């Protein structure tokens, strides 16, 4: 594991407390000792971490939303719609937004990057809330404060939608240094924009040989995306007549979604390009030798995109609200109201959520609209009836023009097993131009909803 795990919540607060004492020139042996032991040579600049961040402030109850992805953006907008008196602040560590949905179509040159890129300023301006670029370091639920690299922010309600982190240990890479190297050389393309840019460059500059892709196991982000990506990469190689073999190692026993459609696409469109290998659990990677090993085999590759299994954002675990039973360290929250168990002022949504809903933009948007109602209702003492989020997903398999399949599903709570099951799944497993057009219109509509008027 990485050193993230070492900075426990308590240590951070201790460290910053000592820094404050030192900065304020507080006398006393205790403060001096702490400064020496806990802070060491902490630069004086650390003092700002303990000051209140200077931010615009309005009079209403403040809702701080952490994470400007599909979930956080939706909640910030709809909180303001349901209760215009809320003082809504959106925090994200990135300067701008890049959409992962539809990014595979961009990899295959079907859309421009500016289709996917949007400004948090536009979102905040058009929907009457505030945005600030900052990294969240800690949360103190007792005093209702979020600590960030620009100081602390007090909240009445806190929504945590920090997304996911990669879990490289689950493909046999436990060493932090190796993880960092692996991430940089063969990024998965599901967390940050730089990963996507690197992947596009890899595809564009590939001269031939074996191009390795994989499908992780567990509840990873966007179930169809790794299969769709294999199709989009194959489409590019086919169009450019690159003599390449795409090796698609699936850590699952078979295609997890739109199985018939994807098999048909692999056979009919990309027979000479995609080699699909199910039940291929990756157990180790030799970075310098460019080899990946599974339980029984070893495969050499010339270039790769490695999508490791994922977990909830480390922030959830670091601030002590992860569910100890959750293999992906998801939040310990009420399955219907989304608040942290025992704390109705802190909510966890999006891909760090405790429920096993499909991780993707549309699900987060649909869920976010409901959670915004729940929080607005809580402030007024009103109950909001639970409704299922909706999952919708387009999977593009052919380009020029773009052609896509699609799926819609809902969830229902099984009172006997106390788990969520899929409910009302509708698949359109034939790809066509209308599906491709619909995928573009869907994305454009979502960006409109989140960023513009």
């Amino acid at each position, binding site marked *: 594991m990485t050193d993230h795990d070492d900075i426990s919540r308590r240590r951070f607060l201790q460290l910053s407390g000592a820094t404050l004492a030192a900065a304020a020139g507080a006398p006393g042996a205790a403060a001096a000792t702490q400064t020496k032991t806990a802070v060491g040579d902490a630069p004086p600049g650390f003092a700002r971490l303990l000051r209140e961040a200077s931010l615009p402030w309005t009079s209403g109850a403040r809702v701080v939303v952490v994470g400007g992805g599909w979930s956080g953006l939706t909640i910030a907008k709809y909180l303001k*719609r349901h209760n215009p008196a809320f003082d809504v602040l959106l925090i994200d560590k990135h300067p701008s937004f890049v959409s992962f949905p539809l990014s595979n179509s961009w990899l295959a040159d079907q859309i421009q990057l500016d289709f996917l890129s949007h400004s948090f300023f536009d979102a905040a301006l058009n929907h009457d809330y505030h945005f600030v670029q900052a990294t969240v370091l800690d949360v103190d639920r007792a005093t209702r404060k979020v600590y960030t690299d620009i100081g602390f922010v007090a909240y009445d309600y806190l929504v945590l939608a920090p997304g996911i982190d990669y879990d490289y240990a689950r493909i046999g890479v436990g060493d932090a240094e190796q993880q960092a190297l692996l991430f940089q050389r063969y990024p998965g393309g599901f967390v940050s924009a730089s990963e996507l840019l690197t992947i596009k460059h890899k595809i564009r500059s590939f001269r031939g040989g074996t191009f390795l892709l994989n499908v992780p196991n567990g509840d990873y982000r966007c179930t169809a995306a790794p299969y769709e990506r294999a199709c989009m990469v194959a489409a590019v190689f086919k169009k450019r007549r690159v003599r390449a073999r795409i090796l698609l190692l699936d850590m699952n026993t078979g295609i997890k979604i739109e199985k018939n459609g994807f098999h048909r696409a692999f056979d009919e469109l990309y027979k000479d390009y995609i080699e699909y290998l199910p039940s291929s659990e990756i157990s180790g990677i030799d970075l310098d030798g460019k080899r990946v090993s599974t339980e029984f085999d070893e495969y050499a590759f010339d270039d790769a995109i490695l999508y490791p299994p994922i977990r909830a954002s480390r922030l959830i675990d670091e601030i002590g609200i992860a569910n100890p039973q959750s293999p992906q360290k998801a939040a310990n929250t009420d399955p219907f109201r989304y608040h942290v168990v025992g704390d109705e002022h802190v909510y966890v949504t999006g891909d760090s959520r405790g429920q096993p809903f499909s991780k993707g933009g549309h699900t987060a948007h*649909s869920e976010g609209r409901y959670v915004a109602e729940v929080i607005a209702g809580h402030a007024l003492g009103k109950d909001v009836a639970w*409704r*299922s989020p*909706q999952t*919708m997903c*387009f999977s593009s398999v052919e380009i020029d023009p773009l052609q896509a399949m*699609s799926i*819609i599903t*809902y969830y229902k709570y099984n009172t006997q097993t106390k788990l969520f099951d899929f409910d*009302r799944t*509708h698949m*359109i497993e034939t790809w*066509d131009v*209308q*599906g491709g*057009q*619909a*995928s*573009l*219109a*869907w994305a*454009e*509509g*979502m960006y*409109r*909803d989140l960023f*513009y008027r």
Partner: protein
Amino acid sequence: MMPDCLKRLRGLVLAFAACNAYAIEPVKVTLEFQPDPDNGRYVFEICARCHLPEAWGDKEGNYPQLAGQHVNVLMKQLLDIRTGHRDNPTMLPFVQERTIGGYQNLVDVVAYISTLPMAPIHSQGPWPDPDSAEYRQGMRLYQAKCSGCHGASGEGVDAAHYPRLQGQHFSYMKRQALSVREGLRKVDPAMTAVLDALSDDELEKVLSYISYLPVPREDLAPSAEWRNPDFQ
């Protein structure tokens, strides 16, 4: 400076003019083009990705039941979204000419949708019992304030583009009523006035009553498992 009363009058005249302009268009469009249901089925493939091949909507209220709706009502919604009279950012790109095509395609697709059989089950309000005080209050409100346009049994009026309410999801009607109140969906001023005059409680009851208005059997699909054969 214009006196306040004049400003208000000018506002009214402008609002009236605007509302007439978009009130006439759907009927004009549906009269001027000859519908081609085969092309309608083809165009509907774009819509079906979200509305699904049966166009039955969902009980969560994300999507309305489109099946069985009047042609002019469907056309008016497409044009209202296109012109911004309905604030619907997620639907907006779908009704652009570059996605769905021109008027001919719109006419064709609404002709196709209006022929689809309706869902045998839809989401309904909290008061099914005709003897309950809430149901009866909802019924009285409906008869006093709604039936004049929407019809005694919620059948609507095609030529006047008054929506058919029978079979519509309770959750969807509620969301739309709130959208009208918030100014996000601009409708006939008479409709806005009715919604503004109802209390939250009255609105809930009248919508619950509407959700129990029976749909003629011949308009319903044989079962909830029926799937649109055009998409099999």
